[in-house]
């Protein structure tokens, strides 16, 4: 290796290390300060705790109703994502396999709708759906997520199904399978990679969504981002507790990511590039 190339590598290494440090420092600050007492934090937020306390976590767990919000987040995300997968895969299958004017126009409508920002809908939306929301706000929220997620998910499935030869459907039909059986037993299992993409993209969006839950949910049904925000607003001067709350809020999704890292990266790159 030439001296120049070695210097180049050293510079890249240094740049990488500095940037990585910059990207994780905020999390490091949250972590160390969640273990400290308030005077310790005020004295110097950068240092390691002089005395480790777990009390902040206990306080945060009860005050932000952590397990209740976590359960709500899990229920809402899982149900919305599963239903989105079921409906949008079937929808896409129909649209990709039916060569009618109607299916072309529906597909075009779905694609166009993806440019509409939620803000352009939220006002009439809240007036129109007030009664469903007051009946059962969690069910209403899941219903809304299916509506908002359909276009993107159907679009992703559509692209994938278009590459599955339709001879496979025909063979299944000849063997006597109904449309439904052919789809669920043969086509759907072939779409596992795109199902992973659809699941990850929607799960990230729904798990982290804030504006829609803020408009729809009540204190009993609030999700993790919502209860974190409210908790921080109330206890922002109790730095240690606030930091513990923030750490608790980010742990589930980071754990999930570290377990499924490969799927996340490939899911996001194929979802974005489509």
């Amino acid at each position, binding site marked *: 290796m030439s001296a120049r190339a070695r210097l180049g*590598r050293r510079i*890249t290494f240094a740049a*990488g*290390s500095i*940037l*990585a440090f910059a*990207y*994780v420092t*905020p999390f490091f*600050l*949250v972590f160390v300060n969640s273990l400290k007492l308030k005077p310790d934090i005020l004295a*110097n*937020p950068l240092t390691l705790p002089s005395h480790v306390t777990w009390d902040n976590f206990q306080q945060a767990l009860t005050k932000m109703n952590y397990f209740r919000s976590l359960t709500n987040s899990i229920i809402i995300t899982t149900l919305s994502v599963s239903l989105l997968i079921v409906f*949008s895969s079937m*929808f896409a299958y*129909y649209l990709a396999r*039916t*060569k*009618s*004017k109607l299916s072309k126009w*529906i597909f075009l409508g779905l*694609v166009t*709708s993806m*440019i*509409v*920002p939620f*803000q*352009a*809908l*939220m*006002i*009439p*939306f809240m*007036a*129109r759906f007030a009664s469903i929301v007051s009946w059962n706000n969690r069910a209403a929220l899941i*219903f809304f997520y*299916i*509506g908002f997620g*359909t*276009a993107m998910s159907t*679009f992703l499935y559509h692209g994938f199904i278009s590459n599955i030869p339709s001879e496979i459907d025909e063979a299944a039909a000849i063997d006597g399978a109904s*449309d439904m059986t052919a789809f669920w037993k043969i086509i759907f299992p072939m779409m596992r990679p795109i199902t992973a993409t659809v699941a990850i993209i929607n799960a990230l969006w729904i*798990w*982290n969504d*804030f*504006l829609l839950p803020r*408009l729809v949910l009540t204190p009993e049904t609030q999700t993790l981002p919502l209860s*974190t*925000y409210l908790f*921080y607003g109330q206890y*922002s001067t109790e730095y240690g507790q606030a930091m513990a709350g*923030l750490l608790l809020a*980010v742990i589930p*999704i*980071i754990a999930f990511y*570290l377990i499924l890292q490969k799927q996340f990266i490939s899911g996001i*790159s194929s979802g*974005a*590039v*489509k």
Partner: protein
Amino acid sequence: MIFLDKRISTTLRSKGDFRMPSARATKKFLKFSLVPLAIFTAVLVIPFANGFYLTFTDWDGFESHKLVGFSNYVASFKDPMFWSTLRFTALFVVVSLVAVNVVAFGLALLVTSKLRSRNILRTFFFIPNLIGGVVLGVIWQFIFNSALVSIAKKYNWASFEQSWLQDTHKAFWALIIVTVWQSSGYMMIVYITGLVSIENDVLEASQIDGASPLRTLLSIKLPLMAQAFTIAIFLTLRGGFMAYDVNVALTGGGPYRTTELISLHIFQDAFANGHFGTGQSKAVIMFLTVAIVALVQVSVSKKMEVQR
């Protein structure tokens, strides 16, 4: 999404069959499409159309209403707060677009280099993106309001002694920093996908021809991954216009509503002040702006892709 316009135009161009749908076809439509289509229509299409209509009425959120022409739009444009929000949003969109993409492209180059630590670096850069804007905003609120202030007092850093979030100009940069930190990891993935799609033969050929790494980057890599730029710029553009979470959690629009981006402004107008008519008109103006800017951007970028 819009990058598949080829797929759409070919489906539209191919001749549909004009036969009456058979009973079997109708049944298949009902089984496979009815539920998603109905939910999509109820949640998206109807409120969207309804929202357009409401801007021409004197609807106040509850009571029945009558048509009032363009007066809601006139009132929106007469609102000086709306103009300052539009200016602030435009500035935010432009600066965040440039900053996020420059940083993201740099990160992508870094993690596709021969560095041994590239996988762990990629994880670090991507993690902020997993976490919602609200939680990120709150983390940085602590950093700007408390951590940096107390460090600055300890080490006499004059520029941080007062929280950045209490000064409109500095709060703008705080918003940019958090946005870059949040979105650059995602755009990095888009650029990585572009970079690794370039075939090795081409790169080897340029190396044999004696091209320097910089030359290779500018003349080979950039043109061959133009599509990644189209996508990343589109996504950051859209994200900039729609930014809400970080805004609410970091500055809350303060000090004195001077850092309100368009989304937060609409939210405040409608839900905090009860101005549903102007709120919805502003939302329609926002939609039209996003749609036009995005269409122009995509068609310009597409042209640049073709000229390789």
